[in-house]
């Protein structure tokens, strides 16, 4: 059923797009106008690994980040975001990003401006997207432009390659854990096709390596972890005339996890799948631009677990189809942008039976924004977004976005920003350790939309001709109608999922610092975040404040690359983060003769601090061709992904004791990959 729907959406988009091309091929070309927007920043700072610090955002460039440690042979740009201030490290098993104290489902992840519901890949070292296929990776955590909406926390916008290749080329890498390849194919002077594919084979090499490396402490590892994924990207870029450009993008990914823990008599099989297709047409007229896009997206996950006699099968799906446009224009040299966005959601929330229910929702937004100067030294960015969301009830909201920046010379900038966000699609997380069994539901009479306000202030400075950069920011965020999903497995057959949702409020605040060195043999950055993220729910934790699961007091990252010669370079990444919050039993009591836990303060305990060092040594025998040696977690620090406790009776003396076990996925993982380009 869903497979055929997905095919229908893809055909629908292709047919619509063909109609668009036909209607525009006879148009007269206009002169090429300058591009409005942030894309300019990407090319201007191509030599830097990250840019955009001064304006509350971070932009990664895949080319320049390629030397950083990566088991895959290519940089994981999404994971690299965790090395920047305000983005919390999420641990080894977790596939999610947590930004400025927000929940992972509060981030808007866009692939070519299309919402992606994919939770990413497990194990922590596989890039979410194929980096060879990308042109930029942008994180916006403050001053979110009015064009973006629907999420409280941040926007992560991933852009595929925009250029039309001049010649046929193949690039990629072959490694111990996975391989990938990207084909760039020119199709005349006006069209170009880029196709990328990846495939992992961790079951062949990771498991044996793990067995060798953790043999001395086998009790604390998760046995028989079998995880793999594959994905495909396709991008077709075309220039119909001097003023008309189009892009077709597709992305398909499939992940599979089989996990067995003999200690717990537990086996679980999980599978999650993501498909995105979009077609965009951009027309430029003088200095104005009109961009239209139609798109479809689907995400689904499936789960089957068995623990002793407990067998569970569950699934969830979400599918979107939509249209959006942007109009960029100038009045009296002041740049304006306005647009319309519409998405139709078809949702199948988590179900555990053979007759799942399907819900639908409509999401419409209009926005406008402008940028202007006040007294030559102060720039203002203002925007307003209006949302209408319809499920079993209609919701309406207005979201102002404001930013004022004051520049003192070319080296210093002060910034103040405010943004309001509303979130109508909610991600519910039934598992506490980050396995991707989350599912999406729409705001309704019983589940009110989330909303939030963020205030931030920042200072940015460059030194020595931009060789060094410093950025410091403080932020405060309040969030309303947040949710905590507490699922009771034995109630799954009897209870509607909505009965497990607790609703409350939250706040997050913190300080973010980063110092970067951009040029020279040694480049890199040190990033530190001091943060706090708190929740207060009337019906949880006796109504008292408790920390969010991914609340981080301290989050420190060090990234350094050193170039020895044209052939040899090395990189090092060090990460330290406060451990995740979790709920610890405070006492036991007996029902009959069976001990039962009484839990203490919600999220009142902490996992051990996360600590990891990665090293990469690269040998480049030719431009873009080399051998990459990487070691992940080189000091073999044990970073548990979950902790469990049990009451045991000592066989020798009969005493009852509490047995505490910490489970981790792996410690050290070495890797060699061959990176090539023809």
């Amino acid at each position: 059923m869903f497979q055929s729907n997905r095919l229908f959406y893809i055909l629908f988009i292709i047919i619509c797009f063909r109609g668009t091309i036909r209607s525009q091929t006879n148009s007269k070309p206009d002169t090429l106008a300058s591009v409005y927007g942030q894309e300019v920043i990407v090319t201007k700072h191509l030599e830097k690994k990250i840019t955009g610090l001064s304006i509350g955002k971070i932009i990664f460039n895949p080319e320049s980040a390629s030397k950083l440690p990566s088991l895959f042979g290519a940089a994981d740009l999404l994971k690299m975001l965790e090395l920047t201030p305000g983005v919390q490290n999420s641990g080894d098993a977790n596939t999610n990003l947590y930004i400025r104290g927000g929940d992972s489902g509060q981030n808007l992840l866009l692939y070519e401006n299309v919402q992606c519901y994919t939770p990413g890949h497990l194990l922590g070292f596989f890039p979410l997207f194929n980096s060879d296929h990308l042109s930029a990776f942008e994180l916006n955590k403050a001053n979110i432009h009015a064009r973006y909406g629907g999420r409280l926390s941040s926007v992560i916008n991933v852009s595929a390659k925009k250029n039309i290749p001049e010649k046929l080329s193949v690039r990629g890498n072959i490694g111990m854990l996975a391989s990938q390849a990207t084909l760039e194919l020119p199709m005349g002077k006006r069209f170009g096709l880029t196709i990328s594919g990846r495939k992992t084979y961790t079951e062949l090499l990771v498991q044996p390596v793990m067995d060798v490396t953790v043999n001395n402490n086998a009790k604390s590892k998760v046995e028989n972890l079998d995880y793999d994924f594959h994905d495909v990207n396709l991008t077709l870029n075309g220039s119909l005339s001097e003023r008309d450009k189009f892009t077709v993008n597709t992305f398909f990914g499939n992940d599979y996890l089989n996990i067995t823990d003999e200690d717990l008599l537990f086996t679980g099989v999980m599978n999650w799948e993501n498909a995105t297709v979009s077609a965009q047409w951009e027309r430029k007229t003088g200095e104005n631009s009109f961009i239209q896009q139609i798109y479809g997206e689907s995400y689904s996950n499936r789960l089957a677990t068995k623990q002793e006699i407990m067998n569970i099968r569950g699934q969830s799906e979400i599918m979107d189809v939509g249209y959006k446009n942007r109009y960029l224009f100038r009045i009296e040299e002041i740049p304006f942008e306005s647009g319309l966005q519409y998405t139709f959601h078809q949702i199948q929330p988590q179900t555990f039976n053979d007759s799942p229910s399907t819900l639908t929702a409509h999401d419409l937004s209009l926005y406008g924004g402008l940028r202007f100067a006040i007294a030559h030294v102060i720039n203002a960015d203002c925007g307003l977004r209006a949302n209408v969301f319809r499920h079993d009830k209609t919701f309406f909201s207005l979201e102002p976005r404001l930013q004022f920046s004051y520049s003192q010379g070319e080296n210093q900038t002060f910034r103040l920003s405010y943004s309001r966000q509303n979130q109508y699609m909610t991600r519910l997380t039934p598992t506490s350790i980050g396995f991707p069994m989350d599912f999406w539901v729409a705001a309704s009479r019983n589940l009110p939309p989330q909303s939030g306000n963020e205030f931030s202030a920042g200072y940015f400075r460059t030194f020595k001709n931009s060789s060094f950069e410093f950025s410091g920011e403080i932020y405060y965020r309040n969030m309303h109608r947040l949710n905590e999903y507490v699922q009771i497995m034995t109630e799954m057959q009897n209870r509607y999922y909505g009965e497990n949702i607790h609703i409350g409020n939250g706040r997050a605040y913190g300080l973010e610092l980063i110092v970067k060195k951009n040029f020279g043999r040694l480049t890199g950055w040190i990033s530190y975040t001091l943060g706090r993220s708190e929740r207060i729910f009337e019906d949880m934790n006796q109504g008292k404040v408790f920390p969010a699961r991914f609340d981080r007091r301290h989050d420190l990252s060090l990234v350094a690359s050193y170039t020895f010669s044209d052939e040899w370079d090395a990189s090092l990444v060090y990460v330290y983060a406060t451990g995740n919050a979790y709920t610890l039993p405070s006492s036991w009591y007996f029902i009959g003769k069976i001990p039962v836990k009484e839990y203490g303060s919600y999220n009142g305990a902490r996992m051990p601090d996360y600590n990891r060092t990665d090293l990469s040594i690269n040998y480049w025998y030719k431009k873009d061709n080399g051998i990459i040696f990487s070691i992940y977690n080189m000091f073999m620090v044990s970073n548990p992904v979950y902790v469990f406790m049990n009451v045991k009776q000592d066989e020798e003396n009969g005493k009852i004791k509490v047995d505490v076990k910490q489970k981790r996925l792996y410690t050290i993982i070495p890797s060699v990959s061959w990176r090539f380009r023809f």
Partner: protein
Amino acid sequence: MDTASLLQQVIKSAKVSVCDGERTEFLILGADYNYLPPYVYYGEELKGEPGKSYFLQIEYDGKILSAETHIPQPATLDSCWFEKTQPSDTLGSIYVRFQNVPDSYYQIATRVVPEETVFTPCLFANFPSARFGKDETVTMKLNKCPVLFPEQDFETAFKTDKQVQIKFRTQTKESCDFWTTWQNEILNAQNPVFPANSNLKSNIRGGIGVWCGYGTYKVTIQTR
């Protein structure tokens, strides 16, 4: 902690009373080795009757805990039987069949005599009538629950040549919630994907556990 120090933690001097709205009885502490710790407070005057409500009050060290419950009318089993896959099997399954009664909350508990001294709720046999259609005839396989924990490799099937007593119970929603979360704790306390990490739902104000009574239909079956 050894058993002796565990017993020292037990409060043996609480003032416990039960009231049916007309009469109040103060309960007496006694030993009962069917439970851990091996103490129960018991009474001799009041007997639970279907259709009536009962109030519990516990006083100790200036603290007062209280709860109330209602005993619903019992439902009946139409039939129950034991099945083996092969004649030579030493294990088999017990099935029960009953007519669904709307707005009920059920529990099915078993006791193998003589080795088991108390009834233990079967796994997944704690459910609301809303799970089934109105007046539907429901057939259910029973999964035996461990009666002692930790119990390694416990078996959910029933052994042959045993006498098994079955209690088909009706209960309140609060009682059903408690036993459902209790089973979740037993089954999923160590589940890494869907861990049980919340307290059992209690209907005792200021305390933990459950105060409930059952409308009970009892039957005995020989597993052969």
